[in-house]
């Protein structure tokens, strides 16, 4: 079928990329123009994606880049889940855009953000494994620059540690890709899906999955490659932490899910993901219990929630993907909202004493997000937990252990979140503040209330939201349809090895 230029899925990738590199020259010409370019590009991307959704109505399609057909050429695959994640990227980038910045630093940050947006959209839309690897590395480089944007010593140390861990993880992913290529001779996801049952269901295939899981799991905050998370979220500006924790991590998880569903459709691979996710969840939430400042508490909580995302996605079938999508999007909204609050609440937890009384909106938003995060009905967080728990209870004993772990960990989460809530609503006066501590601001900005409204809207409209997610999930696990879309029924000669 023909793709009109307004629906061209390369636009959301190419436009921000161009914008990132042209931003500095434009800034020399006109500062006002440079400030407008970023948001304009993001809105254009959003428009293209909306057009695509409306025109296609959920039917998947594939686009071969440069005219080279699959499996030798790179393919962009656009289905519901890809569109959903790709649309989330410019939305949240707009929400966390540095509107208030001026001058060189703002231009730099905008350029890096556009680079991040481009690469992360590529992660969502790409259908070729090495293409995904390249976009992943691009996203990593952009995030290194963004973490260090405020040029403090501690940010640099956190950046270099993040860099070393990420680079080593990527190296392991590359080795995994090498093993994959050796066994199958192709890197196109659809072609791999066809070849996987005969070639990859053996220890070497599982090893390649393990290596790729670790490699792509660095951004997905998977245990054990998530030690960078608390340092980076404590030293990077809260906006960047919001984007990394909320948005980029979910895209990394999407990559792993595509691999799991299409290529490594074996119970051992799922079990591996379940175990790592469970360990990550337990370690993250337990560490959060002792956190003494708000950004690090959020960092550990984020590790815990992403562990639960991995647990959810490791379950087979539509229910697994539905559960994972529900947890992932819920976390996206809530964690972004929390980091929006953290932009002004950067001090120690004790310094937040009495803040809820002085700024009622901030306190109310905090409590709302906390209730949803721990899963109090009728908020959406409860439904996500219910799907995950019910799905876990129906499988074997390993899943039952994971279910028990989720229940215990949620109780601990409730304790530390509401410990802070009690501190927020305390009546007595001034709390100890360090010499450099910023006094917590009273306003909440726009982002946090906006996200709170989104959450409330999702609560009221919970039935259509879950039904929509179920359709997305059903399409995602339909491997046959994926293969059919990329390879319309004309058989291709498979790559010959000799």
């Amino acid at each position: 079928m023909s793709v009109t230029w307004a629906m061209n899925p390369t636009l959301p990738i190419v436009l921000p990329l161009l914008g990132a590199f042209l931003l500095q020259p434009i800034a020399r010409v006109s500062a006002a123009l440079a400030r407008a370019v970023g948001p304009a590009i993001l809105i254009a991307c959003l428009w293209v994606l909306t057009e695509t959704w409306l025109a296609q109505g959920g039917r998947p399609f594939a686009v071969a880049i440069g005219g080279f057909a699959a499996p030798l050429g790179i393919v962009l695959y656009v289905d519901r889940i890809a569109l959903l994640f790709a649309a989330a990227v410019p939305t949240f980038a707009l929400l966390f855009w540095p509107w208030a910045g001026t001058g060189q630093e703002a231009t730099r940050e905008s350029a890096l953000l556009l680079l991040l947006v481009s690469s992360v959209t590529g992660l969502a839309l790409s259908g070729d494994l090495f293409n995904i690897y390249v976009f992943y590395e691009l996203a990593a480089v952009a995030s290194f620059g963004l973490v260090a944007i405020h040029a403090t010593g501690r940010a640099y140390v956190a950046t270099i540690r993040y860099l070393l861990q990420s680079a080593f993880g990527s190296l392991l992913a590359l080795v995994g890709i090498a093993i994959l290529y050796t066994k199958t001779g192709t890197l196109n996801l659809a072609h791999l899906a066809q070849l996987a049952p005969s070639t990859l269901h053996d220890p070497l295939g599982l090893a390649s999955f393990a290596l790729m899981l670790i490699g792509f799991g660095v951004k997905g905050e998977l245990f054990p490659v998530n030690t960078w998370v608390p340092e980076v979220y404590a030293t990077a500006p809260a906006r960047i932490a919001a984007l990394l924790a909320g948005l980029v991590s979910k895209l990394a998880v999407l990559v792993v899910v595509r691999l799991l569903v299409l290529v490594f459709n074996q119970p051992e691979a799922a079990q591996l993901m379940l175990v790592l996710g469970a360990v990550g969840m337990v370690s993250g939430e337990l560490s959060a219990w002792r956190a003494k400042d708000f950004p690090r508490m959020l960092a550990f909580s984020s590790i815990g929630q992403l562990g639960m995302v991995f647990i959810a996605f490791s379950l087979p079938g539509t229910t697994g993907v539905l559960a994972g999508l529900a947890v992932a999007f819920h976390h996206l909204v809530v964690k972004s909202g929390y980091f929006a609050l953290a932009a002004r609440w950067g001090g120690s937890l004790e310094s937040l004493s009495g803040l809820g009384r002085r700024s009622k909106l901030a306190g109310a938003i905090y409590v709302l997000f906390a209730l949803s995060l721990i899963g109090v009905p009728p908020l959406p967080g409860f439904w996500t937990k219910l799907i995950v728990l019910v799905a876990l209870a129906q499988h074997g004993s390993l899943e039952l252990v994971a279910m028990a772990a989720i229940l215990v960990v949620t109780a601990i989460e409730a304790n530390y979140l509401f410990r802070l809530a009690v501190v927020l609503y305390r009546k007595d006066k001034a709390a100890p503040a360090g010499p450099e501590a910023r006094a917590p601001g009273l306003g909440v900005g726009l982002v946090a209330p906006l996200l709170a409204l989104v959450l409330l809207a999702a609560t009221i409209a919970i039935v259509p939201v879950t039904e929509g997610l179920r359709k997305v999930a059903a399409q995602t696990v339909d491997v046959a349809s994926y293969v059919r879309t990329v390879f319309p029924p004309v058989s291709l000669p498979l790559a010959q090895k000799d």
Partner: protein
Amino acid sequence: MTPVDSLFLVSGLTLVVALLFGRQRLTASLLVALYGAQFAALVQTGTLFGDPVTASFGVTVLDQPMHWRYDALSWFFAMITIGAGFFCAWYAAGVWQEAHVKRGHSPWLFHVALAANVFAMVVLLGSGDFLSLFLGWELVSWASFLLMALGGRASGRAALRYLTYAFSGAMAILGAMALLYTQAGSLEYAQVGAAIPKLSAGQLWVLLALLGGGFAVKMGLLPFHLWQAPAYAETPGPGSAFLGAISARMGLYAIIVVIVSMVGVARLVDLSIPFTFLSGRDLIAWIAALTVILPTYTALQQHDARYLLAWHGIGQGGYMLLGLVVGNAVGSAGGLLHIFNYALTQAALLMAVFAVVHRTGTADLNKLGGLVARMPLTFLVLLFGIISLAGLPPMAGFVSKWMIYRSLITEGMPLLFVAAIVGTLGTILSVYKLIHNIFLGQLRLEHEKVPEAPLSMLIPMLALSTLIFLAGFMPGPALSWVAEVQRLVGLPQVQYSLGGVVDPRGGLDMIWLVSILLAGFGVGAVVFYGFGGKSQQVHQLNNYAGGHFLTADVRYQYSDNFYAGLMHLIGPWYRGAFRWIEDGVGGVVDLLSYAMNWVYRSVQPLVFLLATTVAMLVWAAV
């Protein structure tokens, strides 16, 4: 628009009115009227003597339908809930509210919290399947948290402790629900009830542990009871009365719905604990019995009147469960009736105590005394309350306790009977301490001019005491409600009359009993006032001790360390074992958290990465 819809609507309207207009002074009276309207709506549903009524709305999320309905059991609990809300709101409107504002709190928050509690409980009691049960359960838990956190710093701490316990319990319930769904394929009561008989003994034990544990946390059964006393005691005024009266009984409602109704006492008797001669029912009965004894003797040692009554609340919950689990007609009726009687009693007692606090400024039993001279009506309310709490005729508490004792004997459980009696002994001792230290003895200098409790507080208290007496004098109507509940739940129904229980082997007729008692008082009064000769009135402070006249400027009141001898005997037994367990759990979490933090703070995180990679590769190869 079914009657249940209108009940939900009026209840929600109360909450909305409290939210919007809570800051105005007249709203308090409006709210009292609205609680009365809720009561009327409840009576309108007519489900007590009729069939269950379903609400017209329902929601289906993720293929799980949620619907709400009211039956006789819901009616019984809702009647108590709305009644408690009504009386507490009545008490709060007026002088108490003004004093609350003067202390720097917000009356708006209080009214909203109370209305939210009543609404949440109304929703919980109407649940028609496990999912709506969980929804209502969480709403009730969080509404209680809101009410508890309203006081100062101490109440915030107690509320956080409550939250940790309550949420852990809720997670246990959620886990049980997930397991039940796997077994039954649905969360509807009918399907789950059909699937439960097919469960093996091991599965049933897991279910009982999870569900029973979760519900027990709310009820305050051992060993999950440590949060309840501080949380209820530190809640301001009428909130504490409301929580003490009915809040913990929500756990009992859930236990009745799931364990008594779906699992059934007979199945519990068949479920034996391996390597012992005990059954599941014995286990629950002994947990209930220990809940009766241990917190009651803890109450004995308290010197804060609110804490004393709050610890009693835990103990009396044990009586209710004990009666229910015995399972025969009289016993289960006694357990259910005790819910009603105890709600009246606890509300009256706490209202009286808070009236004293309002007038004197303290609830410390070592700093009060002799107030009967200044606050005689409050004394009367407290007197009625403690007679009922101790389970002595002619008050309501006697009826339900008598029924429980009798059923324990007829069912052949003598040890449990002794345990119940020991609990009553503790109750009698501690309520005597309560009334003596506050009202009897010598009046303190600083309380010489204390006036009687204000009218806005006095009238609800007196109304409750009248109800306590009437419920004791003529327990018939209450027993009729209880019989309907028994019919619904599947327990054998009690035979009742206006005066009490009808039983060929020896029933109870309170009308005769109270008449004889009053006649006895009458005879005594005639003898004392008529024939007894002149008695001389001596001033209270006219004392003589050990060859020395005591002067009026030094007051003697025996209040501190009231039961010194008894404490000497049983004191060493109270080693704080449960607190040790609680601290232990907290310590384990702290240790694990420290270990995880160490992992994340390590200088060489790549070690873990490498170790995990190698482990995975080895596992993949194997």
